[in-house]
């Protein structure tokens, strides 16, 4: 220390005797703290647990009599329904079949929400892409292979346009996608002249459009009777799972994924730390547009027809946001796991299928989903209090 420094030294003279434990990464670990840290590190754990609880609860309620019979607690003659209705391959496959469109849209929505944005146009992009695939094939006679590729390109371009408006013009994502939702949906009606392409025509002339609806029996694949009932899994579900796996990998284990989280967490900090925030945002919106277009292709397989008035265009955005929120992805950006969104979509579908099956009014589904949404955000707030 030079003598010039002596002016600053007096007040620190006693420091040599001070405790040397500085800046330790230690803290007391109570059960609550541990749970908080566990959830903080594994954000998709909550929706996963909720999903398991939902399945078990709904299943026990519906199949209670069948369980009694199976366990030997009751004889078949004593109960009204002796077979498994919910815990059957058919029901489980039906849930997956019904979740595929919203599930894929939720993946796109997750990417946007992770960057602290929101995308109201996901459903509209999906419907418009499906219309492009159909109309290009039937109106212009373009081979289905190219029509599908062009449909995917259209969805990607719409995503790119939104991304440009958000990242370059700095418009709020809510406004950009609110406008884009209306524009794309209106364009979809205008372009298609509100015509629906019938399933039979597609099956005869352009079977490729139906590819995502092609299904197979798990039983045949596995080669043994593992699953009760006919469990048919369409290709769209497989694609959804592959997409979810791929995105989960990319978000967790590539520089791009880390940048997506950093941009959503604190864009200024990310920029200063050396992340190209514009490029990252652009890539996210482009990829989300492509995924929405894929959802459009899956829609053709699921619905059979190409319809510009498919309900996904109107409510797909809210369904996807619901799945994302229940899936534990923070609307403030930078937190959550994309697998959570998939769990969120599944939770909604378990209720949608299970509650009517159990004899409840279907309004109970929406009531429960409403509670789940508020509950999920509450949990998110609590988890974020982990910071000291």
């Amino acid at each position, binding site marked *: 220390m030079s*003598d010039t*420094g002596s002016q600053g030294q007096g007040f620190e003279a006693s*420091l040599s005797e001070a405790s040397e434990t500085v*800046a330790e990464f230690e803290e007391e670990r109570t059960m609550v703290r541990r749970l908080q840290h566990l959830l903080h590190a594994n954000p998709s754990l909550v929706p996963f647990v909720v999903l398991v609880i939902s399945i078990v609860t709904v299943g026990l309620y519906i199949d209670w009599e069948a369980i009694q019979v199976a366990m030997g607690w009751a004889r078949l003659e004593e109960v009204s329904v002796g077979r498994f209705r919910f815990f059957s391959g058919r029901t489980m496959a039906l849930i997956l079949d019904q979740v595929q469109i919203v599930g894929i849209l939720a993946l796109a929505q997750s990417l946007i929400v992770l960057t602290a944005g929101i995308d109201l146009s996901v459903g509209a992009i999906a419907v418009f892409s499906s219309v492009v695939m159909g109309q290009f094939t039937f109106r212009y006679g373009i081979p289905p292979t190219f029509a599908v590729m062009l449909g995917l390109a259209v969805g990607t371009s719409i995503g790119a346009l939104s991304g440009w408006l958000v990242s370059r013009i700095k418009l709020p994502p809510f406004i950009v996608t609110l406008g884009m939702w209306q524009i794309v949906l209106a364009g979809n009606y205008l372009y298609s002249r509100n015509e629906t392409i019938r399933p039979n025509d597609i099956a005869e002339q352009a079977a490729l459009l139906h590819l995502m609806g092609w299904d197979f029996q798990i039983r045949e694949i596995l080669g043994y009777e593992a699953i009760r009932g006919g469990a048919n899994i369409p290709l769209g579900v497989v694609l959804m799972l592959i997409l979810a796996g791929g995105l989960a990998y990319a978000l967790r284990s*590539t520089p791009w994924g880390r940048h997506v*989280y950093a941009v959503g967490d604190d864009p200024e900090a990310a920029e*200063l730390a050396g992340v190209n925030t514009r490029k990252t945002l652009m890539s996210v919106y482009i990829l989300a547009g492509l995924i929405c277009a894929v959802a459009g292709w899956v829609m053709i397989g699921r619905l059979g027809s190409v319809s510009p008035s498919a309900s996904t265009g109107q409510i797909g955005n809210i369904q996807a946001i619901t799945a994302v929120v229940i899936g534990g992805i923070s609307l403030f950006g930078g937190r959550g796991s994309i697998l959570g969104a998939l769990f969120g979509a599944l939770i909604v579908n378990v209720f949608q299928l299970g509650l009517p099956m159990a004899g409840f009014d279907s309004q109970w589904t929406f009531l429960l989903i409403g509670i789940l949404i508020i509950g999920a955000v509450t949990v998110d707030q609590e988890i974020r209090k982990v910071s000291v």
Partner: protein
Amino acid sequence: MTRPVLQAKGLVKRYGRVTALDHADFELYPGEVLGVIGDNGAGKSTMIKAVSGAVIPDEGEVLLEGQPVNFTSPIHAREHGIETVYQTLAMSPALSIADNMFMGRELKKPGWRGQVFGMLDKPAMETFAREKLTELGLMTIQNIKQAVETLSGGQRQGVAVARAAAFGSKVIILDEPTAALGVKESRRVLDLINDVRARGIPIILISHNMPHVFEVCDRIHIHRLGRRLTVINPGDYSMSDAVAFMTGAKEPEQAAA
């Protein structure tokens, strides 16, 4: 006199009708710790941002080792070996210590996993982060994967300083590094500044804390009204003189530099 490592000549930056920099000059010499002090709004932050690429000046030039450079972004400046620890720390609270240390310059796995799938080399990044934090005496134990938001203010500062020290090859800029810290944690940072100087890397220290500035700095650049008022040797003046200069209560007799 030796050539400055980093030099700025006649920097001007206007924000609408406000002139934040009014033909400001600046020199940083090899191996020194240069303090930059000035009252709030004097333009010292803008000047530091101009030499570190976060702000693009309207006029004037920046020279790195005598060569004119036009930094268009902090990343650009960083590629030239200038590392900045911002007052806001520029860290993503929800991401881990290792993620934050390598943000924007991640290590990928060697071979196809890195090239084809862009897979991060997390073990290598974690080992490196742990080493750097241990060097600073910040890493007594625990989890390099824990989120930065679970750390205390001082620990976060330590991680940010460690990041700059690990990657800065020519200049390290510290913006108010001790402002949020307790007495003992501040001492660690000051010791670290001396360590980094001993390695020959010059440091720019922006601070309001006069005792800290007077303790570690070789020269003190006093900024006032958008330009350099003077550069003083901390041995020649008292802290109250420095405060008088930067607030305009007193005028320096002659420029020391």
